[in-house]
Each structure stands twice: as structure tokens, then as C-alpha cells.
């Protein structure tokens, strides 16, 4: 028995997801370390991303040149997300200043490898605020492929009015971000 997955043709992101992601990763990026976020939502032909998880703390390593999230944190997020019918649709993380926003070998191979998963690299430790300046990649046919600028414009729509939720997570649990 094998699950069939509907291909994701387009993604719609609530603008607040981008803002909260940048708010979380910038302070860490400015201290010379990498940080990141999980983008979750509903997986359909047009996938809607309306929740952001900001892993930080126990089980999350934020170093220069490396951001890793432990399996225990993935477990915590899974237990939180599934009852809400949320799927992981994308992972965004920073590269520190001067490192281009493209997938490194470790990004490509240590990240989540699942059909149509987005891997987004935010350059300059989060100071690159325009999403079109970021590196967008999608997992297809067993590997990540870089999305060209025109493809990002065509396939990724930013919903300025979109409702969203923001949460933090570590190995101990998930907490809503207030404010």
C-alpha cells in the first residue's frame, strides 16, 4: 500500500508567515548563526501555507553554517500538527552574511526530502527581506531543484490578507507566539 500525493502546482503564503519568519531568524542571523522556520498548511494542488513553526531551544542547533532540528522536535511538531490537519510544506532557513542563498550539499541532503517540499534560503542572516531575493527550491524526482525567478513569481503567491498562526517549538512542546 503506497500513498498517492497530489502534486503541488502553486503555493499561497500568508504574508504574515514571511514577516514572522524574518522576525525570528534575523536576531540570530545578525549574531552570525543560522536559524529557520517550518511552514505548514494544507497540501492541495494549490497548497496554502498558514502556520509557521519557529523551532528554537532544546533540540535545535543554531550555528554558523548549520541549522539542525532534532528528530524529537519533529516528533513534537508532528503530534501537534496532525490533529490540526497541517502538513509540513516548506522549510525556510538563513545563510549567514556573504553566503549565497542556494542549497548547500548538507541543505540538499539533510533536509526533508518529500515530493513538492519547498526549501527556502534567506540570505544575509535574514536581512534580505524581499522574498524574491531568497533561494527557492522544490523537491522533485528525488532531488531539490532551484526555482527560477519567473517560476517563483508564477507559482508562489503572497496573500497580504491571509490569516496565519505562529508558534515556537522545541523538544518539550509547541507554544503559540502572542502578539
Amino acid at each position, binding site marked *: 500500500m503506497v500513498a498517492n500525493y497530489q502534486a503541488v502546482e502553486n503555493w499561497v503564503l500568508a504574508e504574515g508567515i514571511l514577516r514572522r519568519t524574518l522576525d525570528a531568524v534575523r536576531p540570530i542571523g545578525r549574531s552570525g548563526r543560522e536559524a529557520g522556520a517550518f511552514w505548514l498548511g494544507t497540501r492541495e494542488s494549490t497548497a496554502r501555507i498558514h502556520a509557521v513553526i519557529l523551532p528554537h531551544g532544546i533540540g535545535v542547533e543554531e550555528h554558523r553554517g548549520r541549522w539542525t532540528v532534532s528528530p524529537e522536535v*519533529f516528533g513534537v511538531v*508532528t503530534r501537534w500538527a496532525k490533529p490540526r490537519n497541517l502538513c509540513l510544506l516548506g522549510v525556510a532557513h538563513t545563510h549567514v552574511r556573504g553566503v549565497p542563498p542556494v542549497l548547500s550539499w548538507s541543505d540538499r541532503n539533510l533536509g526533508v526530502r518529500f515530493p513538492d517540499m519547498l526549501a527556502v534560503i534567506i540570505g544575509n542572516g535574514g536581512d534580505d527581506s524581499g522574498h524574491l531575493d531568497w533561494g527557492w527550491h522544490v523537491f522533485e524526482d528525488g532531488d531539490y531543484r532551484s526555482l527560477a525567478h519567473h517560476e517563483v513569481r508564477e507559482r508562489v503567491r503572497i496573500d497580504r490578507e491571509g490569516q496565519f498562526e505562529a508558534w515556537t517549538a522545541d523538544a518539550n512542546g509547541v507554544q503559540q507566539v502572542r502578539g
Partner: protein
Amino acid sequence: MDATTQGEVTPQSAGHPVLAREFVEVSVDYLPSPNQFRQSYKDETLIEMVRTDAMTFFGVKDFQDRNIHKFFLEFEGRVLENTSQSLEQLLGPHRRSAHFNLIERVTQGCDSNGRELPSC
């Protein structure tokens, strides 16, 4: 005999009670997938079989490149390292259902390329 009657003492064994195998309804979630793996297993089934079936369902597999990528089942917040135990050993004799999460652990530092890992 359906799953709800498994485990009852059969009339033939009165005086020498022998329990028939019970069935456990298993479900597994994987964070990127919208689908849930569900299957009924005899309670003597090893965790490794559940892990393997769930990985097949979700289309993922253990893999080794420079690193070792291995998927684990997580149960009630605990990563199940011992996949040679049975569902009964994990759950106890009377539990009829169990929910797991499939999670990946990457162990860094190997230097071989592109090999699939043998199953346990």
C-alpha cells in the same frame, strides 16, 4: 473470528487456557504527508515490520550518503530504537490500537555515497 473476539479463551482449551493472537489497529503519521498509514497487525508483529510498511506507504527509505538517514517510529514521545520488539511487548497484552509518528534521524559523518541501508 474478527479482531474484537481475538484473545478470548477458546472452548477447546478450557482448563488449559490459550490466548489467540490479538490484533492491534496501527496508525502512523508523517509530518509532510496529508495521508495517514493505517493497518491492522497481530500483536506478535515486530515494530520493524510496522516501520518498514509505513516507510513504504510514505515513499521514504533509509539511505546512506555522506550521512546515514534512518527513519524511526516515535511512540508517545519516545523514539523506538529497538525495532525487534513486538507490538505486544511495546503495548502490553490488552491494548488494541496504537499511534506512531514516523521521524527521520540523520547521523552525520559517513563518507560512502548513495547506498541504501539494509533493513534491520
